[in-house]
């Protein structure tokens, strides 16, 4: 392509490609607004569902083995995204963003004829575009043999191996629950200024934290209740900021986000397996575990300042 080519009329092929692109984008936007699966994706999923096109799965070969032996048939790798701008609250936008993505993921699963989605991972591209973030979920839609298709499929944010382990123990991972809470503290009386106080607890800030964390966990329970009777919260994220408001008075923002896999478990149900102690003869990290974190959307607090 010469450098003056930009002044030429594009050829027919380029025009057709552009038109196809525009059409695709328009279809994706209007489909998502109508709460439908975009056309191109629908065709792919329906192909996989009917067996006209090959199935796809995010599973490893070992996981494939275990899912097949337990009557699960992979259909298609599916994913959903919601890119959200935080108009009014960063913290609470997280619950909204994940829930929209979750709804879209379930629609794809339905289109694929599935009744469960396994190995669901939470992803975010760290672009940091002004006050916004993408909430992306991806996983594998599966069909449990002998069961009808479900319009409210189980969404399991755990790997396939763990999904099966849970099922055997009569526990069903059901979905995703988010607890998010934030609060501002205005320090009118300058109570947080402790410069010459020696060793002393900053009770105002402690109370703020305690309150914010408790409320976030409360939200988590409320959010989990329609889905199951328990959560495995794999992610606790918190941040606090200070800023100067009017008259140099200090303001503090504390926020806490908990992301959890909801489960439905019968209390005190017996676990069918004996647990046998083994010593893995591998050096380094044992591959028996095989579990990578299923989220990378928040920098977890765990690495930072451990004890």
């Amino acid at each position, binding site marked *: 392509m010469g450098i003056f080519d930009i002044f030429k009329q594009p050829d027919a092929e380029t025009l057709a490609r552009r038109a196809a692109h525009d059409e695709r984008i328009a279809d994706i936007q209007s489909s998502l607004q109508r709460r439908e699966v975009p056309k191109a994706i629908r065709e792919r999923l329906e192909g996989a569902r009917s067996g006209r096109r090959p199935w796809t799965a995010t599973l490893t070969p070992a996981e494939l083995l275990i899912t097949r032996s*337990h009557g699960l048939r992979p259909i298609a790798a599916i994913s959903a995204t919601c890119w959200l701008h935080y108009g009014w609250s960063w913290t609470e936008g997280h619950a909204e963003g994940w829930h929209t993505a979750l709804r879209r993921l379930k629609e794809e699963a339905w289109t694929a004829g599935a009744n469960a989605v396994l190995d669901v991972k939470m992803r975010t591209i760290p672009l940091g575009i002004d006050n916004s973030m993408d909430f992306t979920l991806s996983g594998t839609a599966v069909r449990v043999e002998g069961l009808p298709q479900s319009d409210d499929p189980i969404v399991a944010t755990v790997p396939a191996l763990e999904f099966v382990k849970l099922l055997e123990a009569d526990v069903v991972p059901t979905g995703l629950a988010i607890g998010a809470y934030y609060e501002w503290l205005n320090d009118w009386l300058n109570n947080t200024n402790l*410069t010459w106080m*020696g060793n002393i607890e900053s009770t105002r800030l402690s109370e703020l934290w305690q309150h914010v964390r408790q409320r976030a*966990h409360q939200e988590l329970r409320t959010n989990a209740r329609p889905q199951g009777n328990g959560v*495995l919260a794999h992610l606790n994220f918190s941040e606090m900021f200070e800023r100067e408001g009017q008259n140099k008075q200090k303001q503090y923002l504390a926020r806490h986000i908990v992301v959890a896999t909801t489960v*439905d478990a019968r209390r005190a149900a017996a676990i069918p397996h004996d647990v046998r102690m*083994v010593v893995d*003869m591998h050096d380094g990290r044992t591959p028996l575990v095989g*579990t990578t974190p299923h989220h990378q959307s928040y920098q977890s607090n765990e690495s930072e300042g451990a*004890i």
Partner: protein
Amino acid sequence: MTDEIPEHARDRLKGLRSSAHSTGVFTSDFSVNEFLLVRKAGFEPIGLCVGSCVYHVGIQYRSWSKNQELDVLSKAMYHARELAMSRMRAEATAMGADGIVGVKLTIKRLEWDEHLLEFIAIGTGVVHGEGHPGFRAHDGGPFTSDLSGQDFWSLLHSGYRPVEMVMGSCVYHVAHRGILAGLGSIGQNVELENYTSAMYEAREIAIDRMQYEAEAAHAEGVVGVDIHEGSHGWQTHVIEFFAIGTAVLPLAQEIAPEAIPDPVMVLSVND
């Protein structure tokens, strides 16, 4: 593994909601494996317990050329952790837990003020499935432990139960070397004995304090002891030794070692 999926699980997969959750929702930060093992050990998670404390650390005066414990800092680190832990334990007591498993204790520096440190303790409150009262700590409250679900199962199966998470802290100033001392050792490998002995003393103080706590909890021993060396943004010659572990007691009667099954050795072929 068996190939059976229980009936309840199949119903659930069908999309049938077992709407009657009389027990309410439990929350926990367990991984799947931990969750299964804690249940296997006969316990049920009931709720996440959190304790927070934001602490203002006072001003510490120190002498440039002396090895010494910085008691203001030691006390601050200790007191603040104690506050966070006791709040977490109070939450567990309020929800009727028999104990807290998997306590994670973290310290964060608040960026706008070098004297402010934030302490967080989070763990999962558990109850014994059959309401056995014998797992509580010596004071009748919930036991605390930083053991993971896996470690918890293993500990019970080796005949012990956790009583209390015990800790000891010592913040220490390592003396600077004088200029003359530096000149004397040019071109030679010499041990810096005052540095070595400073490390020894500081570590010993921390372990001793932890052991003292274990005694106060009427424990027989302490498992999973970890000795951290940290410097939470203090100057170069200031270090904190922090010893932490779980104090344990034998279950009603200690299991004889030969009655504990030997672990099986495996070599997994997946990599």
